[in-house]
């Protein structure tokens, strides 16, 4: 491919340099600033996304521990909370404003900053060039900007935690009028403006990244790497990027209009409002309009989070079962179907907003249609491990955990997507359990699987496996212990986003369960800290990787040196001769993509 030499002239230099290490080292020595901060190397940018995402995950996870304290122990007071948070936890009890701020920020942080930027930002960056055989992204500079816009968004969001009236507190979906009217809630004052500005920056980051991913995948594949030979990770990331590029701008428009309503006196979302006795002049707006704009991103967002996890899980299951992924084309097809349908189901979040029931019917049909490609994926994963020769590497454990969680959480989606049942279950703990399992924990499992599987490629070292096993089993068991019982709360109609249930006849029967869930949540959170420790410890002190291809995998990233430099391959970019999944073929354990097809080889 001629573009290699054009776009990556510097890589040729790097190659020459590798052969002549003692010569003019200093000429190409990168400074700390260009290597670690304003790097244009996709691998470094991926690591930047990952570590920033991990910091956010700790913050977002800690917030959930704090509000679980309130839910699990509503009667108790914790003096240390007042020491830490002052008036927000006066008397050692989490105030209502604080509770809602915590819930809102937990959702915002986990959905956008961790599972969007931290997950697809990380693995799109690290895997795309390495797995398609490119020296770097189509535009290293835009890629760098993508990270730094994300960083800016992070700074603004982080700053909002410290302002006097607190961060946004209207739920991560920030429905107006609540989010539009400072009079209605403390969190709708300055904190909401910060939230909207931060999201605008975040969307810029996501678009820069997404366009780059798409153009890289379409244009920079190495010789022989046809689209149908790409690993499923790359297909998944490709569809993710398409989803993001088409849907994030809609959220941007929704956010900008909300900023106008808040600060410029417009009435896009406001009509006939009396708040705290004050009669507002706004008429003619529609609060429902925002929900349409929000969920037009909001639903694809779920798949933006989930698809990369699916792609990585497909890859890891296949490598560690020593078997090809079952039904490669069906896997690609189902990713495509999910990608299309993701755009056509947003109003299933709005069945009880007064949406025209006739319109609702279409959204039920299209929503439940997603279950078909999802079922195909599950059955194909099951068939992939069937009659394999399974190695339970930490990555593999998390991949199997992902499949289990995806089944559990996916099936409850069949309840919620059906409008008749949604009338009853909408905004109850059933929803909380559903989306935490299928989107939250499952995607996290995909992310963990990816980290454990590609850590040797990222840092040239292994993560400690004993800590990894503890991490997996506690998290896996803990996730079910936390979210399984919540379905029962949902079936009792318990509404989400209540900071206290003790005054309700209908919902106060679950005090013991809430205590149990909160306790498990704290244990699981502590084990995540163990993982974080393992991660940073192993970067410096982990067992070194000695073989170029430690998992015996077929894909191209394992043909690079153990610690690949800028440009990835010291010599020419390898040529690809086959798909990525020739495992266990013709009696051979694995056949790398770079190996030409033999004369007597059986067709797949």
């Amino acid at each position, binding site marked *: 491919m001629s573009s290699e030499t054009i776009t990556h002239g510097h890589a040729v230099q790097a190659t020459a340099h590798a052969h002549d290490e003692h010569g003019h080292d200093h000429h190409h020595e990168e400074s700390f600033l260009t290597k670690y901060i304003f790097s244009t190397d996709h691998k470094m940018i991926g690591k930047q996304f990952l570590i920033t995402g991990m910091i956010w995950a700790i913050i977002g996870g800690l917030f959930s521990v704090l509000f679980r304290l309130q839910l699990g122990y509503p009667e108790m007071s914790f003096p240390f909370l007042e020491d830490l948070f002052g008036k927000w936890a006066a008397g050692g009890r989490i105030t209502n404003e604080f509770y*809602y701020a915590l819930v809102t920020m937990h959702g915002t942080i986990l959905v956008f900053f961790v599972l969007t930027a931290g997950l697809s930002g990380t693995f799109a960056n690290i895997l795309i060039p390495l797995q398609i055989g490119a020296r770097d992204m189509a535009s290293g500079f835009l890629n760098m900007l993508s990270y730094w816009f994300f960083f800016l968004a992070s700074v603004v969001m982080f700053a909002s935690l410290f302002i006097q009236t607190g961060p946004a507190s209207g739920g991560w979906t920030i429905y107006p009028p609540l989010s539009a009217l400072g009079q209605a809630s403390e969190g709708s004052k300055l904190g909401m403006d910060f939230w909207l500005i931060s999201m605008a920056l975040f969307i810029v980051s996501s678009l820069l990244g997404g366009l780059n991913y798409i153009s890289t995948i379409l244009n920079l594949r190495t010789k022989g790497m046809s689209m149908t030979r790409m690993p499923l990770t790359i297909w998944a990331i490709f569809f993710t990027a398409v989803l993001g590029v088409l849907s994030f701008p809609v959220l941007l428009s929704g956010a900008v209009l909300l900023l106008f309503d808040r600060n410029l006196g417009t009435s896009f979302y406001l009509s006939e409002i009396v708040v705290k006795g004050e*009669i507002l002049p706004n008429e003619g707006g529609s609060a429902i309009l925002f929900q349409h704009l929000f969920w037009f991103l909001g639903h694809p967002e779920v798949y933006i989070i989930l698809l990369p996890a699916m792609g990585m899980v497909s890859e890891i299951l296949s490598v560690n079962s020593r078997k090809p992924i079952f039904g490669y084309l069906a896997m690609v097809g189902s990713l495509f179907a999910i990608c299309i349908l993701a755009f056509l189901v947003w109003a299933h979040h709005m069945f009880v907003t007064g949406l025209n029931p006739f319109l609702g019917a279409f959204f039920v049909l299209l929503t439940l249609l997603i279950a078909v490609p999802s079922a195909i994926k599950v059955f194909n994963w099951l068939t992939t491990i*069937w009659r394999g020769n399974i190695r339970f590497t930490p990555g593999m454990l998390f991949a199997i955990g992902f499949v289990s969680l995806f089944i559990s959480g996916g099936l409850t989606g069949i*309840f919620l997507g059906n409008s*008749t049942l949604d009338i009853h279950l909408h905004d109850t703990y059933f929803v909380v359990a559903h989306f935490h399992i299928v989107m939250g924990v499952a995607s996290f499992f995909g992310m963990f699987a990816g980290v454990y599987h590609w850590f040797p490629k990222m840092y040239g070292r292994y993560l400690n496996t004993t*800590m990894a096993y503890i991490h997996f089993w506690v998290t896996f068991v803990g996730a079910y212990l936390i979210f399984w019982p919540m379905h029962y709360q949902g079936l009792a109609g318990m509404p989400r986003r209540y900071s206290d249930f003790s005054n309700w006849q209908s919902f106060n029967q679950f005090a013991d369960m809430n205590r149990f869930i909160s306790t498990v949540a704290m244990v699981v959170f502590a084990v995540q800290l163990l993982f974080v420790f393992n991660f940073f410890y192993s970067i410096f002190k982990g067992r070194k990787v000695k073989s170029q291809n430690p998992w015996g995998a077929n894909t191209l990233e394992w043909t690079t040196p153990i610690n690949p430099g800028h440009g990835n391959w010291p010599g020419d970019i390898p040529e690809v001769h086959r798909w990525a999944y020739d495992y266990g073929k013709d009696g051979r354990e694995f056949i790398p993509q770079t190996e030409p097809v033999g004369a007597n080889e059986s067709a797949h």
Partner: protein
Amino acid sequence: MSGYFILAILTLAFVVTFQIAKASEYVSVLKGEEKAFRQNNRINAFLFIAFLVLGLAAAWWCNEEYYKKTLMAQPSASDQGEKVDFMLMLTFAVTGLVFLITQILLFWFAFKYQYREKRQAFYFPHNNKLELIWTVVPAIFLTVLVGLGMFYWFKMTGDAPKDAQLVEITGKQFNWMVRYPGKDNVFGRKNYRLTDASNGNALGVDWEDAASHDDVEATEVHLVVGKPVKLVIGAQDVIHDVGLVHFRMKMDAVPGIPTTMWFTPKYTTAQMKEITGNKDFVYEISCDQMCGSGHYSMRGVIVVETQEEFDAWMTSKKPQYVTVKEAAAPAPVADSTATSKPLAQLN
């Protein structure tokens, strides 16, 4: 003090875990990585099958313990809710079956096909017949669920019966306001700019509309058992949601956009006390849409009673218009044509 103690224990646990983890890494190097790998592999394979068995047992136990605390253990309090309950049970049956089959296969395969030195993985890249089966079979099941769901959905969201009782319910931070249309069965016109809670017009009713003169306002919803009711739902400040768990009904209250919902209560509050065995039972209205810091406390009450009880309650109420006029002008206002002067005061 105990805080530091807990912190110290946690730190200790971390250090111990870390040391064990590091030691086991050294041991595996000494023992030979191949051997250590095989041992770990066997342990994890066993743990998967143990997880399956214990997990299913725990799920069973959880159900025994908590089923009775959910609404599934008591009948739906509305005709419409019975359809929801049926739909719920049917969906449970279908998804439960799929759940069992797939989870058992997943963990069973993980255990059965764990690494063995002599085992050769089976090269099985695709099979069109199998793939067709698991595309078509789920599609058929889903068609049934969608079809039935739609059938009920249209019944429940369709027009309310003509004889339905009208009740208006309006949400504001953080309580519910209720209005009955009175004898004429027509609500008086509203204009949000007339809202003036301190002068008895919290809902912003336009007293110039004669239809408003017999409207009764209340803080509780009273309904007649067996009689369909149509709720006209509104909100003044932010979005709220009228959540009626016992009736299995729910609808958002949106400022500027009135919504409706109808259902037929089946049991009086007194009957529900017997059915649930809870002498404190009340039908509660929960706000199910995040509405601000008092969201969790936005509670309303519905009383379902017999027609006689309802009539007695209704006759005990004075129309809001009359209350307001009495407060505004000590002399009772005889006819509605004289409303313009007090109205000016109200504004």
